[in-house]
């Protein structure tokens, strides 16, 4: 299990155990954490699971795929540490990961 902290835009923190193999998006959605909509269920088709990865974790979460990059380019409030959380696979190495949600997913 990897402990992941999801921080809502208003600062509310949710720390939960996520099973390796799931995506960071699935960890949030299956635990009913607000702020990640994930309309397409992980098909990298909608950009509604946008998160900001805490700087310390950028390397371990990997890099954006071409499709993800392209989707993010048109999302709102994109920063250098923006990722689509459906594209980050949870592994034991991500134990302690902190991600923050943007103000809206539209």
């Amino acid at each position, binding site marked *: 299990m990897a402990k992941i902290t999801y921080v809502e835009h208003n600062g509310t923190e949710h720390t939960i155990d996520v099973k390796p193999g*799931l995506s960071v998006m*699935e960890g949030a*959605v*299956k*635990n*009913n954490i*607000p702020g990640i*909509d994930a*309309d*397409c*269920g992980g*098909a*990298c*088709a*909608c*950009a509604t699971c946008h998160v900001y990865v805490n700087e310390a974790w950028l390397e371990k979460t990997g890099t954006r795929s071409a*499709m993800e990059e*392209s*989707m993010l*380019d*048109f*999302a709102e409030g994109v920063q250098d540490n923006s990722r689509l959380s459906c594209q980050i696979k949870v592994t034991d190495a991500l134990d302690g990961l902190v991600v923050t949600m943007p103000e809206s997913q*539209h």
Partner: protein
Amino acid sequence: MSEARVVIVGAGHAGGTAAALLRQYGHEGPIALIGDEPIPPYQRPPLSKAWLKGEADADSLALKPTEFYAEAGIDFRPGTSVSALNRGAKTVTLSDGSTLPYDHLILATGARAIALPIAGKDLEGILFLRTAADAEALKAAVGPGKRLAVVGGGYIGLEVAASGRALGADVVVLEREDRILARVACKALSDFFTGQHEAHGVTFELGCSVTAFEGRDGRVTGVTLADGRTIACDAVVVGVGATPNDELAKDAGLECARGVVVDLDARSVTDPAVFAIGDVAHRPMPIYDRMFRMESVPNALEQAKQAACAITGRPRPPGECPWQWSDQYDLKLQIAGYAFDVDEIVVRGDPATARFAVFHLKGDQVQSVEAINAPPEFMMGKQLILSRKPVNKAKLADPSISMKEVAA
């Protein structure tokens, strides 16, 4: 009214999401979620894609873990249907004979696959794809050496065809019109998908009318066409559209028009205590100045949000641009909007590169876009459809000009 009792009829993507959102939005009253399938709410889109190919399991399909419902105080009742709605008494009668009172009722009964009313329709091996049980049956029926006939060249049929090929089955698609996707896409897109599927070994019978299913020992062995030919097969998937499950609403006197007629809050125009969401709702769409019914996950989620906001006193979500997606082989198709009142089609990019987009215009406004492996066109198209901002067609047609500049 924070203790208001909410009953949700239908535990699909819409109903399951509405229940979860009500809790997210702080609703404290009782929530009952009534579903006629034996399992908790799950995602249907992977049934024709990742799940069929064995790349996703039941757990990954589930919207929430099974224990979520009890933990969130949601009274989930699987394997149960609603036989009657009594709006006067504000109760629903369940298939087990009990009645359940409500303050707010959410109808999320979905749609069901249309069957072909022809000879042999009840033979074993004639399948539909709507539920996890349907997908299970289909998975068992396709594999190397099997021959699958898909009736209907729409998105479901084509996704099944692609997955069938991935599993090693021979696949033939039988389509009534003279091209696939005839009802939902323009010719350029039909031609593109025809070529892609043919390259993957799918064969097509276009402009053909299916008149009967043939069988032996109760099991389907072929599909008979109006021209007298019989297409031999081991299994058939019928994907010729769906019809809304609005009988409960109709019987209760709620206004229906192939779906329950609702307002911008997903509330029935007949009864303020009743909401209808997802495939069963006939809803207003202000950007097109009309009302219609949609069958898509984004629509189900959006309306679940609308109903949950209305019930918990939150402001209505901002108007959305409807969208949907389809995955076939390594192609990602993203569609934004609907092609109403279109007078011009602009193709941006070269279909031969498998990266292009088809824009449907009304005057100089974008009504819809179909984007193949083209996220910028999809994302920006979505924004243009919503904003109704006029576009320069020459710029739009020129892929060397970025979508950001086109929309600037």
